[in-house]
């Protein structure tokens, strides 16, 4: 596979490290909030539960052998076709902006 890093251009996948699902959001649990079932379920899903989608998947990769940027790569898990690569920080900032 070749992954087009948004900073370095297309590079072989061996330069990258895979993490996983980029659609998961870390639950925001207030400090000192009592532990309820909903909170427990949200954290359980965030830490332990992963989908194994067939087709397009947004996933986190890090260009560890290059610029060390974390990237959100949209990849088809059946064909390995890569539909887009974004800097993870940009995606995360946009996510924060919509939440606020």
């Amino acid at each position, binding site marked *: 596979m070749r992954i087009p890093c948004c900073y370095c251009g297309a590079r*072989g996948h061996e330069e990258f490290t895979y993490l996983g699902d980029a659609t998961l959001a870390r639950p925001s*649990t207030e*400090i000192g909030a009592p*532990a309820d079932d909903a909170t*427990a379920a949200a954290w359980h899903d965030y*830490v332990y539960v992963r989908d194994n989608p067939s087709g397009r998947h947004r996933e986190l990769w890090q260009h560890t052998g290059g610029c060390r*940027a*974390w990237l959100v790569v949209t990849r088809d898990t059946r064909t*390995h076709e890569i539909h887009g690569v974004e800097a993870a920080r940009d995606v*995360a900032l946009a996510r924060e902006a919509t939440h606020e």
Partner: protein
Amino acid sequence: MNDSSPATPPQRSSAPVTAMRLMDGGLIDRSRTLGFTFDGTRYTGHPGDTLASALLANGVRLVGRSFKYHRPRGILTAGPEEPNALVELRTGARREPNTRATTIELYDGLVAASQNRWPSLQYDLLSINGLAGPLIGAGFYYKTFMWPAAWWEKVYEPLIRRAAGLGRASGVADPDHYDKGHLHCDVLVIGAGPSGLMAALAAGRAGARVVLCEEDSRLGGRALLDGRRIDQRPAADWVAAIEAELAAMPDVRILKRTSVVAAYDHGTFAAVERNNDHLAEPPAFAPRQTLWRIVAQRSVLAAGALERPLVFPGNDRPGVMLAGAARAYVNRFAVMPGRRAVVFATNDDAALTVTTLAEVGIDVAAVVDARSEMSPAMEAAARMASALLITGGAVTRVRGSLGVEGVEIRSADGRKTRIACDLLCMSGGWTPNLHLTCHQNNRPVWDARLAAFVPGNLPSGMAVAGAANGEMSTRSAIMRGAELGVAAAVACGFRAASPDLPPTDEESTSSSPLWRVTGVTGKAFVDFQNDVTVTDIGLAHREGFRSVEHMKRYTTLGMATDQGKTSSINGLALMAELTERSIPDTGITTFRPPYQPVALGTLAGHHRGKDFRPTRLTPTHAWAAERGAVFVETGAWLRAQWYPESGERDWLESVNREVRTVRNAVGVCDVSTLGKIDVQGPGAAGLLDFLYANTMSTLPVGRARYGLMLREDGFVMDDGTVSRFAPDHFVITTTTANAAKVLQHMEHALQWLRPDLEAAVVSISEQWAQFSIAGPRSRDVLQRVVDSPEAISNAAFPFMAIAETTVLGGLPARLFRISYSGELAYEIAVAAGYGEALIRAIMEQGRDFGIAPYGTETLGVLRIEKGHVAGNELSGQTTARDLGLGRMLAKKKDYIGRVLQERPALLAGDRPALVGLRPVDTGARLRAGAHLVASGQEPVAANDLGYVTSVAFSPTLGHWIGLALLSGGPARHGERVRVWDPVRSGDVLAEVCDTVFVDPKGERLHV
């Protein structure tokens, strides 16, 4: 049976002088003679020969014994698909088994030996397996060696391995080296036959960066083998002209002896270049082979086609050869593969073999055309060769065991004729070589007109030209190659025009398949290399292994090193016939990389031994080695474990002395291997608050703090110190093992979880040499090293103070008053290159105070005496509370692991928690890994209360001490537990105690 004795001694002084070599023609250099030996007999050949052609030239037809039945075997093909002629090449450490004689380029002094025969090739005692054939068909091993199960390893497997098997590995390290390389191009052309040459020419003339890979030592593909004319001249001359033009193009790279073995995603290919396999040994410093990773925008696959054998009894005898191979030996190597031939074929392509053989004086006795209708091309060829033409006929039997002596032919009317011959050429048609189109899980499609699978969906950027695409004539291959070369260049943004297409000979490619000869008895082979016969496929069918994937695994068809190149289509056609399905309904097994066998050494390249995992040396390594330190591998690092002094009998004596020196005077230890990460920016404090379970933003400038990092699941990930040099500048340390992981974790937090924080992190582990100076006299030593001694007085520089300073007269340094040993202690860091100078200075200045260096063993004893946790306790299964560090957990900030560490099970009172252990009998030894049960309880799993994580002999206390994770933890202080170690027969009673064995109040830290 594999012969463990050396190659058979010479049986005769020399073979008849190249009896079968033609006087002229061929692409060989008759001006030079090369000597070689096969099974100890000396022969000669010429540059341009393969081992196979040279053996045939010398009249050697018998070259090996088959895998299972030990049948005599000869040379079937003239190329890399060879299933029979496998030999051991070279001797000693370079001996390589299962090497195809058809691809070995002859060199002077070549030594080869036949395989799988005992005592000799001519008289093989295990050929009795052939008589037992009905007993050892498909599935024989599975059925026969079922039980007793215990016999498998001891009896059955060694027995089978001796009886069945191919060559022997050398058994010693490979003395050669292998390289790796990367190539990037616009257009990759795979195969340099007529279509590949035209594709490369078209793309190259357009200015594209082209890589042309050819498996053979020469460009030309079948053009060299068929003896046709291209561009009104011999094909080899046309090839040479194109090669000269390509070689002159600066952006075209020709890789000969290079097999493209895999097609990966996004235009990435793996190719193996056999740089020096054609020599006895590689020249000094040159690699034997190179593994290329080629990245191409477009690729043109022009891999040609492979001829299929016909399936009839005795089709494996030496002297039975593929028709295309027979004419290849004549045209390229000027070798007569026999003197009197019969040609048995299903297609017009074999007509060229008939005329080629006849032209060089080989007597073609008969042409047997399996097709029921007379073929004009075959008729013309038979007439030219004055051969008997038998249309609608079949070869039903082959006479001769060690070589063909004659054949029995059945005419269309059923009449049988016997014809004496020493060569039987067969052709079942041609199979497009489409493996690389399937490596990304595309499936080929059946072409009924060709009776062959042709490429289906293609990997993106790939196009297929010539015979690989079912375009079987030279003319169509040339046209299509040019067209696809132009298209590939245009797709890469070049303006391209088709080269002029050279005129070619007329040829008929008419073909009609015959999957097996029916109404015959005797072993008819489908897979030659794995000895799979028609009967075996019938057996698989009867026993229900009818899917091609099941048939393959039950009969092992296609599972040998040739991966079924000559056998898989025949095999699945036979299964289709048995199941009364069509071939496309029967399907085809999956093509997976690599296309050709690749040596593990080639895949490894230079990454062998220490080059695979280099050893990292500390800044003081040379100095420590000079002092006779004993080293230990810790991860990738080599660290000093202890520093023996003369008269010390064992490691314990040395370590006890080192510990006492630190506790009573002063010691110095290289701790540079700890991970060090620089954190800067306005968001640095916020980042560290988020990463550590305790609060870092409150840390004053000029101070350090111990920190604990959790994983999001609430377990401890790592620990270390955080030092604040400025409001927006921190330096943190990690454990040696987790240095890379923690950096990645921080980058993830910064770029993904907390993009609001403005900060940057960078590893500085290797930039700084760092030493611990520990013991009551450590300040005295340090004051002689630093440039401002007064600045580190106890008052000016208290416990947990840090500062940037200078040492040894102006050398910038960082000083930390932190302690792992529990003594008055400092860590001092300088630029890594000054590390050795600094430790020599410290040792010099410390002599008056009795300084000694200490290693990792002493480091461990000191920390266990103080109850500090390390890797054994930070196992990924312990929480902060388990380790007695619950008081560190911040309550007023968010941090990784904050929520899930509160899960009820992690708060349960019976969780294993950290305690200290001291043996009741102070002479007893504790062992790490031992399990704990309550005193008086049986040592069974149900009573297990935990285990010992770390132990040390404490010279301070005079007995062994331990740290353990014990159910209930500190609540059991004062109880007695059984420390049970079945592995080392340990059963010791110990008292549960606090984890801090030395100076529990921590007074020594502040002196």
